């Protein structure tokens, strides 16, 4: 890839041709405030925070392609004043309950305010929103608080461009604009599949998972729900799994997950979960060891070779497991009667 040299705040950096000034800056550890930019999505230039000065003219760095010899200032007085107004407007419109917000230290707005520096007295001069909007708690996995929403549109673009469903869009006009489903119905009545891709990309605490704890550490794993084998990181606290995060490096899912993989992890620590094999003795299931169970299965299978035997495999097994099942059925049980629930 062709490398391009440009200068940001006097520092000469190298960037790949075709990238934006914002991406080039971030890749070189130069922070430019931004709220509506997400590396997975096309830039839209809506938040107006990432403005930079190019020869006295303000350009949005997320939309500005790098070019050889470009000289960019991220904090000229004009750019700084415009950014200051934008962040003050956002903060004056935002609820002030950071301590109880799920986004907590992950909040981009907080991060930007911290970076720019905000004078509380100036925010007080602005008019605060009057009536809070109702929170949509209809979805079992996440909630949507329009009061915290900064209308960056990342959720809209995620659902449209990554998920391909297009559940969300902007509703209403002007300062009454909100993110909403078709007809602004509750999430549960929309075509939303609850995959949570929008939730993980929300830069503030507006779209937030209902059940979430900060894990003490993470364990790399594979989702057990289907044969795709999505890469995940299980967040662990003590002996409990408290979160799931998609693995962006795993080729099969590249950072995406479905509703089951992302939110369906409570079975792991569920009290009803079977953790040992059970063998029925005198009409009652009794806990057994794996050796006992496997011995029993092997013994019984021996009685049903050929056409007396059939195998039905599960879609929750990996491809490798399913391959072994058919190999076992054909080679050991000597029948071709093998099927899979996903073939329906």
């Amino acid at each position: 890839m062709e490398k391009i040299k440009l200068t940001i705040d006097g520092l000469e950096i190298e960037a790949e041709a075709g990238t934006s000034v914002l991406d080039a800056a971030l890749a070189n550890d130069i922070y430019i405030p931004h709220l509506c930019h997400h590396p997975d999505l096309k830039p839209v230039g809506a938040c107006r925070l990432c403005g930079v000065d190019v020869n006295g003219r303000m350009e949005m760095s997320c939309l500005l392609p790098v070019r050889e010899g470009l000289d960019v200032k991220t904090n000229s007085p004009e750019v700084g004043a415009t950014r200051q107004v934008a962040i003050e407007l956002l903060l004056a419109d935002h609820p002030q309950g950071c301590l109880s917000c799920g986004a907590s230290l992950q909040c981009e707005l907080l991060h930007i305010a911290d970076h720019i520096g905000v004078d509380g007295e100036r925010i007080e001069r602005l008019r605060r929103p009057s009536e809070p909007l109702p929170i949509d708690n209809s979805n079992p996995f996440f909630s949507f608080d329009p009061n915290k929403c900064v209308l960056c549109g990342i959720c809209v673009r995620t659902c449209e461009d990554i998920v391909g469903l297009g559940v969300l869009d902007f509703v209403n006009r002007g300062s009454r604009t909100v993110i909403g489903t078709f007809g602004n119905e509750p999430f549960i009545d929309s075509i939303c599949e609850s995959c949570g891709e929008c939730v993980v990309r929300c830069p503030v605490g507006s779209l937030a998972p209902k059940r979430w704890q900060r894990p003490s550490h993470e364990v790399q794993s594979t989702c057990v729900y289907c044969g795709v084998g999505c890469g995940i990181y299980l967040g662990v606290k003590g002996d409990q799994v408290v979160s799931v995060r998609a693995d962006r490096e795993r080729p099969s899912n590249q950072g995406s997950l479905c509703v089951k993989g992302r939110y369906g992890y409570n079975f792991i620590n569920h009290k009803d979960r079977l953790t040992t094999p059970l063998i029925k003795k005198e009409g009652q299931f009794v806990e057994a060891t794996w050796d006992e169970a496997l011995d029993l299965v092997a013994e019984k299978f021996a009685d049903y070779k050929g056409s007396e035997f059939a195998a039905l495999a599960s879609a929750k097994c990996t491809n490798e497991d399913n391959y072994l099942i058919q190999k076992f059925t054909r080679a050991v049980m000597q029948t071709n009667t093998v099927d899979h629930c996903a073939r329906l």
Partner: protein
Amino acid sequence: MVQLTDFQDLQRQAMADWESLHQDGRPIIMVGTATCGRSAGSLEVLDALRAATEKQEIDCHIFEVGCTGACYAEPLVYIIKPDQPAIVYGDVTPQLAPRLIQSYLIKDNPLPRYSIGTFGNGRIEGIPDLFSTPVFEPQARRALNRCGFIDPTSLEHYLANDGYTGVTKAFAIGPEQVIEEVKNAGLRGRGGAGFPTWRKWRFCRDAPSDQKYLICNADEGDPGAFMNRSLLEGDPHAVLEGMIIAGYALGASIGYIYCRAEYPLALERLRGAIKQAKEHGLLGDNILDSGFDFHIKIKEGAGAFVCGEETALIASIEGKRGMPTPRPPFPAVSGLWGKPTIINNVESLADVGLILQNGSDWFAEYGTEKSKGTKTIALVGKVKNTGLVEVPLGITLRELVFDIGGGAPDGKAFKAVQTGGPSGGCIPESLLDTPVDYDSLNAAGTIMGSGGVVVMDERTCMVDFARYFLDFAEKESCGKCVPCRLGTKQLLGILEDICAGNGRPGDIEMLEELGRGIKAGSLCGLGQTAPNPVLTTIRYFRDEYEAHIHEKRCPAGACKSLISYYINNDLCVGCTLCAQNCSTSAITGEFKGPHYIDQDICTQCGVCYTVCPKKANAVEIISPSLRL
């Protein structure tokens, strides 16, 4: 396929018919039935005229015409007797209509007191020549030259008045020469920004693509602006002709007209005109055997102001939410469906037709060095002669407001004039000699805009005025970018507080700082210009803001929270009209006795002020409020 010769036959026939219309010895009655006329009752007047002529068995031509612009005198009726000039009657009611027939057509008494003027050859005693009256004399009616004088549903009327000769001229000289002609004419976009039309066309013509589009922007959304609507309703073929020429110059085979759905009559007239043009081979494949294909589609907008912005308009046509996208890429390079697209305003396109019909020199006769031609203007607000006018660019605002407009009504003093709608600014009396051209208006802190001009008098509060426009901008912002969405909300909130008497010291500086930030930071033209009404009113009328904030006083006596109505019993004649009309029964008083307003009950609706007889003038407006 329709050959050029067929078209010429059609044209000759139309001219012959037009000639016989005026020469066949039958009187002609025309009624202005554009939306402005209809809302004043012109359809009822039309019915009354038809009934009266039938009853009197008068053999005459009756047809509907568009708007001449004299909104202050609607409904308008034009009566032309053979060998007589046309008499224009104003404020015609269904009751007056049969009298006009009886008196003028039968008894030959033209009833001069109901007429606002005549036009055409000859004079009629007691009636001024319309185009020599102060309202019309300074005007130069070119884009509107047929508006109000032909039947907009008749292709023949249009053809008989030079119609579509611009198209045949364009085909004769070729697309390159068409662009050259528009360049020589010095035409700048009439939608607001004033970008040279030819340059935009050049970008698009030079952009390589298998498909290009032309869009006619008829999404006129400024409060108080109706130039484009009147033109579409009164002379729809003029816009189609401009589109065909523009499409030919660009190499675009498909044109869209993006017209707001709130303009049902304009849409009806456009649909009718497109149908006629198709039938006569002026639209479709291989127009007049020129090898040029051009099809026009209509897209109805849902009335979002932001859809007048080019990229939002394109998104709307594509079926998306009307939200602007950052430029570049510019629509001339990548617009509708990603193809090179040119968006021209209705009036620009009508001007294109005129330029090709009459030549660039003719067009450039009017105007200033950098702003050529004429401009249609909707003159509204506190001015005697409200209406649609067309003036040479370079005329001063003073001529516009005082000569054409007749100044503020009811003896009130003029205060300010706003140009360019919600994106424009206010100009005080001291700057009234500013010429109406793109650059001079910019220098004064406002913009030409699409041509809406709102006049304010001494009773207009400039803070309240700014609040009105910010209320509009705040509601019409698309909500995409932070400075516009939240900034207009803050500006509005602060202005509402000031008008309600809750302004705080420092608010003016806050408005200025926010205004600058919103202008600099917003994504599209809506946000970049939305603070203009605030910033210019602060610039020219800062004392009014200060009076509101520091003294809780509205100098214009307009902000309800800061005023009280008070009856001066030295002047009160005790007629009881105020007490009878007070909706909250706040006024007490006996016949021929003194009257009093209970300030705790009064809602400052102002009815008492309005109904108090002029000769008494006993109701006064007091600010600050008398309420504690």
